[in-house]
């Protein structure tokens, strides 16, 4: 209430990429502007995907072209409205999206939203597991690398980080499967759980869909063991991909903060080198990690598609590939648009968190 002066300079409705407002009290405004930035992002992607998918013709011909007689095909196309002008279809599609209707798949006639609710949890579980692996590997190793900058451990860890990035998830997945499932026989080859556990899981009341969470909640520890043993390899495969990014990020940022005056001051007061890294330099270095985590979500979703295919992990990515192979482009379009919205919203949340932690982010 006391900050009266800065109100007039607000630019209503403008999604200016860089507004020059500085000073306190800007968080609410930042959130609003950042929120409205979601809309053009999603809108552009929806438009792009829609017109791209229409370039190849109507989805029904694509899915069932060779299998139906021409007159039946034409009737189907007419019924679905695909013979109308593309612009009409486009605006109708936009209207449907606003009401939460993402279309119905052609091959198995399910609403795309239902596909999301059925398989989304599996992808979420995989992403959470992978994120845990990535943070557990990336942060400590990044700290070690920063502390031993330009020495052997650093060189080794930097190489490791590049290797993480250079290895496609499906190849690391294949190697992990070969080693731990086929040769050593320690872990299951594929899937989210054994058939028995899956049955137990589906019979639960109000399941969250995240298997390990459900297993813990129902106190079923044999199921938990089964679920975890299935989850380990996919989580490592996908997690390592991101771990390399986190490692480098922590390393560069900690090195950056280690050069700051307050670290020097701490050092002169006799604070140990270890404590300097883990206590003083570490926290400011976390902020960029949170920011980059938003971008990592996009990377992870891409990686999840490949990981799910590698491990037959029945999530959204796996399902997307099934639909792709069946040439069900309504389903593909729906899932892609849904994922675009998810990515945009997560980025929004991550940005807000980053702004809450670090006031300098707001501008």
């Amino acid at each position, binding site marked *: 209430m006391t900050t009266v002066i800065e109100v007039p300079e607000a630019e209503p409705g403008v999604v200016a*990429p860089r507004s020059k407002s500085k000073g306190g009290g800007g968080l609410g405004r930042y959130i609003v502007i950042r929120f409205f930035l979601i809309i053009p992002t999603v809108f552009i992607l929806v438009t792009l995907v829609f017109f791209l*998918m229409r370039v190849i013709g109507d989805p029904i011909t694509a899915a069932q072209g060779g299998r139906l007689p021409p007159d039946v095909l034409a009737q189907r196309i007419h019924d679905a409205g695909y013979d109308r002008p593309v612009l009409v279809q486009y605006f109708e599609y936009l209207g449907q999206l606003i009401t939460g209707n993402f279309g119905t798949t052609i091959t198995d006639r399910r609403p795309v939203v239902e596909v999301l609710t059925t398989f989304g949890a599996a992808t979420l579980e995989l992403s959470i597991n992978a994120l845990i692996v990535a943070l557990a590997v990336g942060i400590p190793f990044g700290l070690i690398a920063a502390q031993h900058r330009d020495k052997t451990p650093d060189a080794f860890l930097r190489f490791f980080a590049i290797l993480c990035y250079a290895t496609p998830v499906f190849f690391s997945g294949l190697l992990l499967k070969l080693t731990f499932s086929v040769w050593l026989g320690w872990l299951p080859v594929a899937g989210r759980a054994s058939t028995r556990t899956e049955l137990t899981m589906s019979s639960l009341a109000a399941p969250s869909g995240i298997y390990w969470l459900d297993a813990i909640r129902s106190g079923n520890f044999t199921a938990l063991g089964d679920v975890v043993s299935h989850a380990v390899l996919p989580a490592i495969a996908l997690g390592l991909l991101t771990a390399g990014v986190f490692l480098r990020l922590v390393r560069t940022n900690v090195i950056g903060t280690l050069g700051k005056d307050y670290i020097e001051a701490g050092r002169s007061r006799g604070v140990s080198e270890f404590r300097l890294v883990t206590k003083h330099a570490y926290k400011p270095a976390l902020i960029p990690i949170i920011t980059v985590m938003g971008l990592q979500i*996009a990377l992870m979703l891409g990686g999840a598609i490949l990981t799910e295919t590698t491990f037959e992990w029945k999530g959204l990515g796996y399902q997307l590939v099934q639909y792709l192979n069946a040439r069900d482009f309504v389903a593909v379009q729906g899932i892609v648009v849904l994922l675009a919205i998810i990515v945009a919203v997560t980025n929004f949340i991550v940005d807000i968190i980053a702004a809450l932690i670090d006031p300098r982010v707001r501008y």
Partner: protein
Amino acid sequence: MSTPTLTPPRQPLFSRLPVISHLKKSVGLQRGMLVVGVVLSGLFILTSIFAPLLAPYGYSQLSDASGSFPTQQAPGGKHLLGTTVGGYDVLSRVVWGSQTAVTVIIVSVAMSLFLGVALGLLSGYFGGWLDRILVVVADAIYAFPTLLLAIVISIVISRGQSSFWGGIFSCAFSITVVFVPQYFRVIRAETIRLKAEPFVESAKVLGASSMRIIGRHIFKNATRTLPLMFTLNASEAILTLAGLGFLGFGIEPTSAAEWGFDLNKALADTSSGIWWTGVFPGIAIVLTVLGLTLVGESINDLNDPRIRGRKRAGGGAGTPASPGTPSAPAEAGKP
């Protein structure tokens, strides 16, 4: 953008030979990384050029004078790295795969370089509504999972099945769409920075046309970061190509060898303990990407040896391209 504006700066860029000048600057560990990177990348390029000589068989060859190749044969004897389920020679397909990869890199990076640089220059120099729209579009594309976008584009172009060039172009174009925003952001940021420099102003005073200022004065100065982006994007192009191939959007095995496709086929082999069909193409991907990334990383570090700290924080998630962080988009978000 007509051709004369593009041709003059290209020669000095070439004759300066980024990697060699960096090699001279480097010491110790840095030099080691760069040398390893250069050697691996060199091997990759040489393999692709001499693939017809190096590969014992053709990429789609299933038999020779002494009859059909055995299927799923372990490495050794006539087939050094074994054969696949379909009876292809693994070594031959790994060697030929490098040719596919190089072609895709060249086509995709050339296309995205051209489009991204041109759009970035125009958008940064003229500003206004065009700039705003392009920035929002580029940000939207940039924030999206690259693989998904590549899949969509790939469907559009190839409609599933593809010949050699059809497959190459659908992959290359999908990768282009993903990369253009990155080049665009970097070049635009540089252009905005350079636009305020005195030499641009004096050119204006002398009556130079906008096209001449962009083509001659700004372009030349804005492209310093391109060798770095080139190497980093080349490695990403390989990964995207392999990812597309792995999902079945690559090139048919009869029209070219593609590592990702082979890995997909190898997945089914793993449960029966057959490792050679997947491990060798996989190693090929890893070594190639490793080599290119090491070169790119080293160039990056050598260009900027002082600060490696704060610069990455700039290119954050949904934030628009902030000027002065040339290398951030290339490495922070999508390494």
